[in-house]
Every structure is written in structure tokens, then in C-alpha cells.
């Protein structure tokens, strides 16, 4: 725990994180402002967090925000850091991190496909990855209705009801 606090202190002395949190034994979560994310990621990479495990997105529909979560892993001390930041939901745009973590390219395509976030500077961010010929709202947004989409697009099986209980009969 002491070691984890040292990491947090170190980050606080260099950046202005909005919030820090020890999630569990070897996991730290830090919320940054949009401008600081790239320098924080570059700094953490130089400190040993060399692996970007995943970049994902959370839809906070009531706040009207998307939260981008970069999860970094350090193989020397097995400590995971979540770098989080919130962006505007109506016009979701963020600068790419492929110059820091080249592997982020696929994750950015994924987030673009499922949430509609645009990553400026990633030349391929609009290429489709899983959803071929998608023609609706990005499906992981909370205002997307999968049941309605499924009904509209795919035919469902109709079942014949061949037993209708009369009055007084057990169902």
C-alpha cells in the first residue's frame, strides 16, 4: 500500500489529477483532465507501464459524458493503473494515443465503432472492425435499443398458440 501511495504522490507532484483512488490491492485509478492525458500516459510509459491492456469507453448518459479508460500494466511490479478522462457526449472527439502506444490503433477503432468517438490523428479510426455495414446508432450507447433494432432487421419465429384455456380451466 505504501508503494502505491508513493506512485500516487509522484503523479500528484507532476500533474493535477482530478481524483485518485486505490481500487484494490494492485490497482490504481486516476482521473485526468483532457489536456493532461497524453503527457500522463507518456510519463507512465517511461516509468514502466509499457503495456496498454485496453482502451475502453463508458457511457454516462445522465451526465452527458463519455469516459475513456486507458488501462496500463506494469510487468515489473504488477500494478495496474487506470487512466480515465471524460469527454463531451454530444461531440465526442479525442486526440489519438497511437504515437505513445501503437497498439491503441485497434482499440480506438473499436471505441469508434461501438460508441462513435472520433480519434483525431488515427488514420484508420473510421474503418469498420466488427460491425460490417452498420447502419444505425453505435450499439453500445445507452440510447440505442437493441430489441427494436433486432425486430426491425431480423425475422422472428412466430409461434402458434394451440391451447387457450377456457374460463375456469387451469392454465
Amino acid at each position, binding site marked *: 500500500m505504501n508503494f502505491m501511495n508513493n506512485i500516487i504522490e509522484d503523479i500528484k507532484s507532476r500533474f493535477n489529477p482530478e481524483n485518485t483512488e486505490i481500487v484494490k490491492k494492485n490497482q490504481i485509478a486516476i482521473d485526468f483532465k483532457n489536456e493532461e492525458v497524453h503527457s500522463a500516459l507518456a510519463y507512465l510509459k517511461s516509468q514502466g507501464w509499457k503495456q496498454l491492456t485496453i482502451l475502453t469507453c463508458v457511457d454516462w448518459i445522465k451526465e452527458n459524458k463519455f469516459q475513456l479508460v486507458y488501462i496500463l500494466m506494469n510487468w515489473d511490479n504488477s500494478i495496474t493503473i487506470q487512466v480515465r478522462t471524460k469527454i463531451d457526449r454530444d461531440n465526442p472527439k479525442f486526440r489519438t494515443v497511437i504515437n505513445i502506444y501503437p497498439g491503441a490503433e485497434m482499440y480506438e477503432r473499436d471505441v469508434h465503432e461501438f460508441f462513435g468517438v472520433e480519434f483525431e490523428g488515427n488514420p484508420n479510426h473510421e474503418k469498420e472492425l466488427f460491425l460490417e*455495414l452498420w447502419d444505425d446508432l453505435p450499439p453500445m450507447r445507452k440510447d440505442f435499443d437493441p430489441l427494436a433494432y433486432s425486430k426491425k432487421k431480423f425475422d422472428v419465429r412466430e409461434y402458434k398458440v394451440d391451447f387457450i384455456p377456457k374460463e375456469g380451466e387451469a392454465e
Partner: protein
Amino acid sequence: MALNENEKINEIDVNELDCRDTLTFWEKFGNIFRSKSIWMLHYCTGCGAMELPPTMTSRFDMERIGMAPMATPRQADVLLITGYLSVKTLRRIIYTYEQMQNPKYVVGFGSCTLNGGVYYDSYAVISRLDYYLPVDLYIAGCMPRPEAVMSGFKKLMDMIKKGEALGWKRYQKYYDWYKKNQVRALGEVYVKDEFHE
């Protein structure tokens, strides 16, 4: 020991089974042999495929009824669709099915192929298979036990023997209808492969 008169004619009495049906002698003959050696393409699309290893290995031993797995579509007779089919996979499945030689049979496996199963409201999973491919036989269950799978395969063999498994002919006859449904769900049936472009 000599056979007596009753024992001599048995089993393959194909010509006299039904004189009025439209199958010729050689078609019936062919159907019997087809039903005894089935190569199935196990394009395992969903979790139901988990029941195939026990069906193939020593306890249930599928090979003893004359079925064996086959790796390529051009040599296979049966296309097994073992569970949920996402839109992306359906596109590949249609390609695979169209590469198979006639006669070919489709077996839908598990409730996902029947009515969508637990994925009935998913944006990516089709709700029923027989709109897109001609299904000869469904094996119900989520997931079906190996006993059910074996009995389903036995049923399929009987159907092939009697000439009832005619999905491939239906596909030729109603090709327009199938194509229309495929295009409606998929946009277009064209596999775009970024890594081999």
C-alpha cells in the same frame, strides 16, 4: 448353412418400397449409401459446439454410426451450425454453404438457431436460421446433450435415406427468397477481408 427363402430378401428392398414415388432406383440406392457415410463440416459458431467433443470421442463415438468430421467445405455433406450466428459469421457461413457440393444438408443446433435463444434481442445475432439457409433438421436445447445430438444425427440419416432431406433443392428453387432475406439482414453478402486486401 443355406438361407431359407424369407431371409434372402431383406433391408435393401428399395424398388418395392413405394412404387409411386418419384425417386428412381439409382437415386434410392445413392441415398442409402449417402446416409451411411456422412462428413460434417463443423464450423463451430457458438457455445453449443462444446457438446461435439464428447459426441465424437470414446463415450458416444460418433464414427460408429458413420459420421466423421471434415475440415473443408468442398468435401463435406453436412453443415453444422452450432448455436448463435452473428451477422458477421452468417456472411461467412453463406459463403461456406455455397461452396459445398450437392447434395448438402444443414443442421441447426441449439435454441439460438431456432428462435434466437438468449440472444433474441441482440443487435448482432440473427433470430432464426431457416430464413437465410435451408435447414433440414433442428436439434433443440440450450445446449443439446450428446444423446440428443446422436439421436438428431440418426434422424438426419433416416431422412437422407428416405430422400426427405431436400434443403439443397429448396435453396435452388427459392434462391431469390433466401437471397432477399440474406441481403435484408446483411446489407450485402460480400466478405470484406481487411487483412487480405
